[in-house]
């Protein structure tokens, strides 16, 4: 069910159009239902599609071929609080679709008993292209990821064996496992791979920006948005937030002040001094809706983020070399004469950059009913 390098089929220009089309289709179907007997069912939508402007995915689909029933099982699990100790916290608690599967509004994610984590939950999107997971890249396989939140004491505080036992005792689940895998056996691999199957379907590649770069009919950007796009490259943002995924998937220190608390970041995993304070470069897709920002959610707005790059970058250990350049400060820019690291950005440039960043919002992704609880 994997279709490679093909554009998403039937992409409406606007959501409103999409909604009307849906209504029209529904009306048509209702009208036909009375008389049509020879109409063949509509072919299933592909479960996973690679947007035409994306690179090939890195997930090993050969180990976990997506099936309709497998994805359905994963979706059931994703929205089920029983994955947590007391039944209150599902995956969706910190990964809410409307906010590109983040914990909107929370700088640090809240888990069970309202316990507070140490990091801001990352969006779940385009996971088939992710080489490692978490801000520090500690998990290297999507199939192994869910064990971490399930067993984390401040997140779901449950054990994997307990979760599997709960599922084994629920006929609704054993039935769905049978549909997905042929037998009703609930195993670690089946459980985790079903969750992966659902998460892999969460592809965001149909923002206004995407349609513009794919030169789809009617796709336009405003002059400000185009100016922002040019700045995004010329100011070096694209050096790290690179390519169609808007991340180079590397670990970098972007000069966050340590006054908000020290988090070793990548060094938490590698235990190497040169990795201290580095974090995975996050994608900027749907960034309009994934706030607050940074690993600890310290910035509540995109304006605050850009202000950090313009005026707040601190020369902490392992600061990324790309942020150390200060020679490009030119007259008229805010930091003229200053020698601090960062990216010189005028207020106007910041406005345009933000206008561009908002073109990365993929409304279809944020509202796709296939991704919502059933």
């Amino acid at each position, binding site marked *: 069910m994997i279709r490679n390098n093909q554009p998403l089929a039937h992409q409406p220009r606007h959501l409103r159009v999409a909604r009307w089309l849906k209504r029209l289709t529904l009306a048509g179907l209702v009208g036909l239902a009375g008389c049509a007997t020879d109409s063949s069912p509509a072919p299933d939508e592909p479960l996973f599609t690679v947007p035409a402007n994306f690179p090939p995915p890195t997930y*090993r689909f050969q180990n976990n071929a997506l099936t309709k029933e497998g994805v359905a099982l994963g979706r059931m699990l994703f929205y089920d609080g029983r994955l947590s100790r007391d039944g209150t916290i599902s995956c969706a608690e910190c990964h809410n679709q409307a906010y590109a599967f983040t914990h909107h509004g929370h700088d640090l994610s809240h888990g069970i008993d309202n316990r507070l984590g140490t990091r801001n939950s990352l969006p779940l999107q385009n996971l088939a292209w992710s080489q490692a997971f978490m801000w520090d890249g*500690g998990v290297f396989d999507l199939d192994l990821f869910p*064990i971490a939140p399930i067993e984390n004491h401040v997140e779901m505080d449950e054990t*994997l*064996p*307990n979760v599997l036992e709960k599922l084994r005792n629920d006929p609704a689940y054993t039935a769905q496992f049978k549909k997905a895998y042929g037998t009703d056996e609930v195993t*670690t691999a089946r459980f985790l791979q079903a969750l992966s199957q659902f998460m892999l379907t969460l592809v965001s590649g149909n923002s206004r920006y995407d349609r513009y770069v794919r030169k789809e009919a009617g796709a336009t950007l405003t002059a400000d948005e185009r100016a922002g796009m040019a700045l995004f490259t010329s100011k070096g943002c694209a050096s790290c937030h690179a390519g169609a995924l808007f991340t180079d998937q590397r670990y970098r220190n972007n000069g966050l002040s340590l006054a908000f608390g020290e988090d070793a970041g990548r060094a938490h995993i*590698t*235990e190497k001094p040169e*990795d201290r304070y580095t974090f995975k470069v996050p994608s900027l897709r749907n960034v309009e809706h994934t706030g607050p920002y940074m690993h600890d959610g310290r910035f509540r707005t995109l304006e605050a983020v850009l202000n950090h790059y313009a005026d707040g970058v601190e020369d902490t250990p392992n600061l990324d070399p790309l942020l150390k350049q200060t020679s490009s400060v030119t007259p008229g820019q805010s930091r003229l004469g200053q020698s601090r690291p960062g990216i010189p950005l005028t207020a106007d440039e910041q406005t345009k950059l933000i206008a561009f960043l908002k073109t990365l919002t993929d409304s279809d992704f944020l509202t796709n009913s296939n991704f919502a609880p059933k």
Partner: protein
Amino acid sequence: MNAIQHIRQRSFGWFLALSLVVSLVACTEQSDPGALVIDPKTNGELTLEFDNVVGGTNLALGKATYKNSFGEAFTVDAFNYFVSNVVLKKADGTTYNVPNSYYLVRESLASSQLVKLTDIPQGDYTGVSFVLGVDSTKSASPVTERIGALDPGTYGQAVDMYWSWNSGYIFVRLEGTSTAVPADRNGYYELHTGGFGGMTGKTVNNLRVVSLTTPTPATVRTRIAPTIHLLVDAGKVMDGSTKISLTSLYKDRTFNGIHSPEAAAKLGLPDNQQGMFMVDHVHNDPK
């Protein structure tokens, strides 16, 4: 035939006497040279028995108090370790790699301490080696290959041997109470060793190979299934080539004994743990 006829003609006492002889012959059958003939067509069995101790004393979880070389008293509340990639060495120097051999030995589960190797070529084995931990290839393998001892869905909190946040197995886990550990650490010491070298970045590799020779050969035959009885000294975790004092360890308030392969390596835990194993004896039991 003649003998039976003869018995019939004699008294019951003679019958008893003969029965005794027959049964004696049966008992000595094992030492019959025929039983030691190697049948290359039929494979046999060999058991590795992991008998956990602390020094010269049996290991009793929770209750017994032991002392390390610094005189610090401690209990052992959990002692688990992975044994993998078992290789059996024959007297002639050839080796047999036991395929897909991954075992989790837990002091809390007696059955886990008897590792039965089946389908072993017959022969005289005089050495055994294994990886203490889970090799890097398997540590990075797809979830579908993580079955049996490697299935993180079977551990639970009490025997958790998997780091979910830093994908990898805990190779050796020793923990318990000690008066040498401060109250703000609940008087509880935890020494967890993991770290297979890293997947997305090079990290510390705390895997070690344990190689042992047996005092007498383990003779795997059609009718002999030997057991190599190993003593595993949990006390060596603290008192190996490096001597570890819990007092000085926990003086450092940031000491993290459970989540840091680097800390384990610096403490010398991997080498200490490599030295926990010795073969006590071999018994060549009839099957």
